[in-house]
């Protein structure tokens, strides 16, 4: 059986020292091993940005696509081969700005993949511009007087879009994060895990210390029930979204794959391409 070391490759990440993404990578590798995956059965599909490079740093099949489009690529991979474990990943710009349309629709479609967002509330790779997650008033190169837009609340947004698995974590909580990714992989449907992954170079506000001070662990809230959607929404609003842990899970709704009319049990990628002559003749006759 593969261990987390089997998910390491020899590629050195180009992230800044201290970047939160290192821990996210480690958590993904551990979670993959913990759920019993072999590297060839994992496909990591990533977007563009610092965090988008993650698919190249894990020893598994990896596809580094175009900006904002990790989710449709990942859903395509899963549709082609339902036996693969598919993890999509990228930053908050990738998922909540250019790719927001895909994020909402992937949530409501509920294809059985896991989406990990490395949320640093800034554009890092383009060297420090405002992100849809930046707080109002946040000063960056593209918002020198402070952002005058409202930040997106991804967890609340996911709940309203019909998400079946919504979780949030902090990159330094390696153990909790690993457990959430494992739960996300096992969840039958779309799982969204937003991870606060601080940018040590460009975000001087939302630092490690800031998160430690401001985050509340749901496990510390007595009797928190992740199956209660209404309470999940209230808790998020009460804490301004700054909570970590499993926020909401619906284990009853079926995944997209389970609902498709007559969808092949064997992966489509292994299907015989040759068409039965009788079926073809039937199709031809329908036009006569």
């Amino acid at each position, binding site marked *: 059986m593969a261990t987390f070391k089997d998910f390491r490759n020899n590629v050195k990440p180009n992230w800044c020292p201290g970047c939160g993404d290192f821990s996210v990578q480690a958590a993904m590798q551990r979670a993959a091993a913990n759920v019993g995956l072999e590297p*060839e059965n994992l496909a990591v599909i990533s977007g563009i940005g610092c965090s988008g490079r993650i698919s190249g740093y894990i020893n598994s099949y990896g596809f580094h696509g175009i900006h904002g489009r990790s989710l449709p690529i990942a859903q*395509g991979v899963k549709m082609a081969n339902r036996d693969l474990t598919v993890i999509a990943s990228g930053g908050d710009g990738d998922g909540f700005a250019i790719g927001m349309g895909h994020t909402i629709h992937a949530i409501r479609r509920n294809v059985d993949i896991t989406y990990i967002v490395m949320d640093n509330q800034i554009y890092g790779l383009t060297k420090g511009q405002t992100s849809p997650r930046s707080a109002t008033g946040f000063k960056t190169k593209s918002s020198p007087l402070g952002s005058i837009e409202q930040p997106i609340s991804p967890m609340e947004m996911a709940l309203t879009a019909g998400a079946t698995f919504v979780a949030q974590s902090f990159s330094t909580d390696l153990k909790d994060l690993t457990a959430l990714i494992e739960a996300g992989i096992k969840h039958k449907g779309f799982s969204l895990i937003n991870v606060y992954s601080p940018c040590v170079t460009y975000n001087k506000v939302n630092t490690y210390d800031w998160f430690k001070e401001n985050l509340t662990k749901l496990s510390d809230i007595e009797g928190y029930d992740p199956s209660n959607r209404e309470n999940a929404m209230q808790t998020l609003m009460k804490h301004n979204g700054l909570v970590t842990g499993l926020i909401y899970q619906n284990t009853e709704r079926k995944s997209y794959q389970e609902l498709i009319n007559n969808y092949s049990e064997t992966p489509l990628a292994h299907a015989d391409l040759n068409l039965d002559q009788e079926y073809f003749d039937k199709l031809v006759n329908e036009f006569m």
Partner: protein
Amino acid sequence: MINQLSWKVGGQQGEGIESTGEIFAIALNRLGYYLYGYRHFSSRIKGGHTNNKIRVSTTEVRSISDDLDVLVAFDQETIDLNYKELHSKGVILADAKFTPKKPEDTQAALYAVPFTEIATELGTSLMKNMVAIGATSAVLNLDIHVFEEVVQEIFGKKGAQVVAKNMDAIKAGYDYMKKQLVDGVEIMELEKADGKKRMFMIGNDAIALGAVAAGCRFMAAYPITPASEIMEYLIKKLPALGGTVIQTEDEIAACTMAIGANYAGVRTITASAGPGLSLKMEAIGLSGITETPLVVVDTQRGGPSTGLPTKQEQSDLMAMIYGTHGEIPKIVMAPSTVEEAFYDTTEAFNLAEEYQCPVIVLTDLQLSLGKQTVEPLSMDKVEIRRGKLVTNEIPDSENKAYFKRYEVTNDGVSPRVVPGMKNGIHHVTGVEHDETGKPSESAVNRNAQMDKRFRKIENIRFNTPVYKNVKHEEADVLLVGFNSTRGVIEEAMVRLENEGMKVNHAHIRLIHPFPTDEVLPLVRSAKKVVVVENNATGQLANIMKMNVGHAEKIIKHLKYDGNPFLPHEVYTKCKELF
């Protein structure tokens, strides 16, 4: 007796004009006639003039005709907009309900037939279309029993009574009209057809059926005119094969999802029209640099932007060849008939896997939506070739290095493994990369990978890159076109030849890489080259000048008003040259 007939039915959109044409056409197709249809419609659900022009012939036809024999009109607008097409012995069959007026400058006969009144008497005004079919049958001296089977198929679900009522409506229309046709009125009786069974379908049907035959089991697409029929067909047929269609949130998702599915090993298609292709372009570049097979259909319509969304145009040529930033190897094919649309689509999947690049199947609105008679399609000519897809297990090795997915090879094509394969792990990225897919900005590597990618399509094997009808070693005119103009060119050619002009015809089926070797000799041996295309800038003519030269003899014959060419327009252009 006549051997061909041109019939048109028109009225307000949403009035059942299409089903009238459909029932008439299917019945005649089953008698063994060859049909070719053109639908004039607007980008709205109800209202606005719409018409369906159908040409019926005892021999193969691939174009609408210059003129018209019978016009069935459900409103005055239909008469006003279309009467000029009628020849002097043509007939207008108009609903008496709107008190039709015959324009002064036509010799065609007008018959006010109480379509609505007869239908209402029989039960419902909805059957006015059936009355019109009956009246048409009287003019054609056509036995109305030929409609029984189709009416049964369409209305059978609603019960025997509805079927009987509709047949009664056809008969009532026939009987009424028969009485009007007193001595001296010319009956347009068609010669008997051969009775052979043939298909009757639109180009989009053929593309969708081609995808099924080629082993395509997944489609990701977004609805758009005139491409939606492809996804609508596949969502009906793929489930029986375990596959499916996802209607995505947008065109970008459709294209990237198709890339993801192709990467993971299932033959996947996406289809759209110009606006969708514009949105897919970044993803097409991703397919190019990651060498992920991809089949994209572009059903051209009037552009730019929303342009003329329900009208004929061929203006995406340059965008399809050069679209996406940067440079990638790409194959652009342009079937010119429904048969070719089927076989080319099956081949598109092979080429996409053999050359590991995007393949664009280009059609135009007339080819995609024009319904026509097609000789039965066959699986005999359909092959499945997957190129260098690794299907055997890859043995374990000491060396744990990544699989060389982008190995620099002589033909430029590298072995391709799909996720799930042990010992095949590699990286895929839209960033320039080395042989294992690892990002690399080295100049040496850049050259090696760029050269490798372009080497792939240097000698592409494409069965018939140019359809040729070449009878003359030296021609006065070489007529060139692509997609649906094939029929008009063929007809113009016959007329010109009858008048002594030496005409050759080349229809380009492989737009890119351009088949210079095939086209150059034909250009050389012609005095003039007339390139017929539905766009304003002469895109194909320009591509020809770029590839084969001879700019001095290449003449552009362009039409971009939203309508397909008529045979006489091509004929006249050539006559003017000499």
